[in-house]
């Protein structure tokens, strides 16, 4: 009986095979020298290269023929881990031998292979249909593996980490700014958005105008909003006594913070109102019949029932804020965007990666954690 190969395994297995034939790494004699491609066998010691090829063949075979998601997950995750270790080994091998200024970066082969494997891992996880706790465990395992690789120094030969070593203090400082911007504006948006959502749920007349107004604000491009806000905040700093002492300034973190807050309002207000609107009428009537006051109904019945939808709003805001906080760097607000835009200015890919990779990772972790939290709530969507 001939079984047809897995539909996803054909393109992804093929991509993985092609990726291994392409340059695994790119090598530059110094930071500004032109990049030269280095293939798998040039970049790695023979034993490593053979191990990678062997594992890759196994991964392709499993992707094509295996049906059990657990097996597919195990093999493709193992191969992904091996690839991550191998690129570090390539960094060490290529920059060995006194090439002090040599820069080794992942090449096109690495990125394609990583992409194919990430798709295979995602597919296997989706097929396994893990619950929220399973997804959190998978995330924790991935983060632990990444942390171990970083701590072990396996990646120290890579140029992204060379950029990091040059500005470790700035990296953590800007990371702190990034989190302050993203979480700080989220906190203020929750404090303002939930009451506003409750208010427009009660006074239905204002619902459409408020939501339309907020969604118009959301359409304003981020750089534009950040720039426009410089004018009023600069005026406040100059004319309101004590404002400047509180850190209100025309440029810097203040306009970025306010802009992120403005973008956060729509998801918070809209989701609070939608969550409250979805509370069944019978439930609120029963609560009223039990003699609960309006305030008690809201606090002990309506808000708990609306919580999953409100939390979904928080997830949208947090992921959006983590991404948008990157733009703050353009108006002197700091954050990981500092490295992205510095890197763009100097055409230094490694510097761009140093800013972009943590941003992507933060947004991803925030999305997975909050999604799982929403699913863990009693009465959540399944």
């Amino acid at each position, binding site marked *: 009986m001939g079984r047809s190969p897995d*539909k*996803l395994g054909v393109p992804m297995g093929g991509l993985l095979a092609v990726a291994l034939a392409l340059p695994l790494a790119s090598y530059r004699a110094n930071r500004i020298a032109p990049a030269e491609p280095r293939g798998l066998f040039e970049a790695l010691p023979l034993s490593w290269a053979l191990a990678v090829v062997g594992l890759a063949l196994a991964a392709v075979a499993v992707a094509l023929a295996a049906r059990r998601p657990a097996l597919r997950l195990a093999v493709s995750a193992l191969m992904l881990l091996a690839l991550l270790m191998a690129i570090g080994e390539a960094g060490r091998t290529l920059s060995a031998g006194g090439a002090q200024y040599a820069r080794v970066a992942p090449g096109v082969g690495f990125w394609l292979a990583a992409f194919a494997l990430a*798709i295979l891992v*995602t*597919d296997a*996880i*989706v*097929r396994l249909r893990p619950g929220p706790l399973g997804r959190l465990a998978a995330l924790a395992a991935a983060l632990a593996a990444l942390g171990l690789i970083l701590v072990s120094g396996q990646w120290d030969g890579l140029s992204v980490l060379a950029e990091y070593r040059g500005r470790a203090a700035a990296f953590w400082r800007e990371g702190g700014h990034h989190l302050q911007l993203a979480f700080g504006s989220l906190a203020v948006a929750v404090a303002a958005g939930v009451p506003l959502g409750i208010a427009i749920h009660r006074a239905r007349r204002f619902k459409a105008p408020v939501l339309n107004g907020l*969604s*118009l604000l959301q*359409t*304003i*491009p*981020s*750089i*534009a*909003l950040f*720039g*426009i806000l*410089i*004018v009023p905040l*600069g005026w406040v700093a100059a004319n309101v006594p004590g404002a400047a002492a509180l850190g209100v300034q025309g*440029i810097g973190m203040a306009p970025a913070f306010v802009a992120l807050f403005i973008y956060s309002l729509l998801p918070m207000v809209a989701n609070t109102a939608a969550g409250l609107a979805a509370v069944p009428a019978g439930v609120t009537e029963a609560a009223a019949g039990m003699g609960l006051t309006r305030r008690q109904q809201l606090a002990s019945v309506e808000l708990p029932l609306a919580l999953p939808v409100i939390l979904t709003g928080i997830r949208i805001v947090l*992921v959006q804020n*983590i*991404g*948008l906080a*990157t*733009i703050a760097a*353009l*108006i002197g607000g700091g954050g990981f*965007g500092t490295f*992205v*835009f510095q*890197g*763009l200015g100097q*055409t230094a*890919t490694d510097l*761009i*990666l140093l*800013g*972009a990779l943590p*941003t*992507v990772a933060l*947004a*991803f972790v*925030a*999305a997975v954690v909050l999604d799982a939290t929403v699913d863990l709530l009693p009465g959540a969507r399944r």
Partner: protein
Amino acid sequence: MSAVVAAALRFALVALVLAFLLVPDAFAPLLAPFAPPGGAAIYDRASLLALTVSHLLIVVAAIVPAVAISVGLAILVSRPIGAEFLPLSRAIVNIGQTFPPVAVLALAVPVVGFGAWPTLIALFLYGLLPVFENALAGLTGVPPAVAEAARGSGMTGPQRLLQVELPLALPVILEGVRISLVIALSTATIGSTVAAKGLGEVIIAGLNSNNLAFVLQGGLLTGALAVILYDGLGQVARLTARRG
């Protein structure tokens, strides 16, 4: 009443933007207080009209293929032949949306260099997700009774798709296009940091030379364009929903 007010506001905003683009110098006295002493009040390194046109062209050039491909993919995974990919494609869309547009834009630069290309690629990739998500929701959300009736009346698969499913899904798809366009307009502004021709150039020039007049005119202009586009497409979506 409110419909009349909305129409009047809409018209006024479009007229204001057109007037500013065609005769920017007439607005110089308004912006002069924000310019540094001796600095220009109106951006003079390129025509605002040309920058606006180039900005919109980049957006359209990226979004048209993005819409075509994502609707095609959504059709594919909502057919029996591609059903196996449905959960995976949902997961990819979810993960893809956590990637910040700036990161996508910046990461495209090392691959294709500076200029319009990285912007086009970022806009294209980012434009795929909302349209795909909405097209999928629209196509898989056709009421079972309707789908059953279409099958019962002897329609073939392609006929059902073209005459029943796509028309019913159209308003939802258009909503996705609207989201994609607004994101693209915004991301194209950031494209100016990688040397794409667009309105972001005006804002960034203002930030670099401490000229708030530039920052304001660039910011207000892109903001107004986004609002006009978002609102206009909303009108179109409402019309198709009413007809359908």
